[in-house]
């Protein structure tokens, strides 16, 4: 299975990424995607995203490999942006393709849940008055990730 992982400043092109995942194939029955966007909560004007070059890409590749072990995927793509992101702009894209709808949908949810708790990224919020705040990790994200733990 082809796993594509990218960490980049640039905006991604969803249609191009899906074409890359499905182009020339006739064994893909479903493509699931999740795109996380920057919300303007509390008057946020910019979200700054920092990562750990090298480790971050490796961590995402391992998560994608785990998804490929659990579900019969024909391909998966994870793109995560870093740098300054304005409200309304995309932050992260997870794409999964499979012959089977359930495999695509479940693995997509799995990938974003694990990525949120296991890939080294950190968000800092910048507000209109110039103040900044590091985003705190959320307990609900740990819970969402934990539902994929195996007994």
């Amino acid at each position, binding site marked *: 299975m082809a796993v594509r992982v990218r960490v980049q400043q640039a905006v991604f092109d969803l249609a191009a990424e899906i074409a890359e995942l499905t182009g020339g194939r006739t064994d893909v029955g479903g493509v699931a995607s999740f795109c996380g966007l920057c919300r303007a909560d509390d008057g946020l004007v910019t979200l700054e995203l*920092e990562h*750990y070059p090298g480790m971050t890409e*490796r961590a995402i590749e391992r998560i994608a490999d785990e998804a490929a072990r659990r579900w019969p995927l024909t391909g998966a793509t994870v793109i995560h942006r870093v740098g300054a992101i304005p409200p309304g702009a995309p932050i992260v894209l997870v794409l999964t393709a499979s012959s089977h709808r359930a495999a695509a949908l479940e693995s997509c949810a799995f990938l974003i849940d694990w990525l949120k708790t296991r890939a080294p*990224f*950190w*968000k800092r919020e910048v507000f209109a008055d110039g103040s900044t705040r*590091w*985003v705190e*990790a959320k307990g609900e994200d740990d819970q969402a990730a934990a539902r994929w733990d195996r007994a």
Partner: protein
Amino acid sequence: MRILYFAGLRQRIGVAEEEVAPPQDVRDVGRLIAWLRASSPAHEAAFAGTSRVRAAVNQDFAGLGDAVAAGDEVAFFPPVTGG
């Protein structure tokens, strides 16, 4: 040994990375944290002020008991908040 700091921890300590040469008995992540905290008031305040410090040794997540040695790349950071 190369030490990297990220996010709020980096900001509090004031450097993104430093080369250190801890004594031989600093053999695991827990002892390395204790030694770094003792190295300056900024380190002490940064580690004390970061809830649940996470660590990675050579770019793999590591626990307090995991080994560290000369030549390793050891990173410290708050819980991750990507996605």
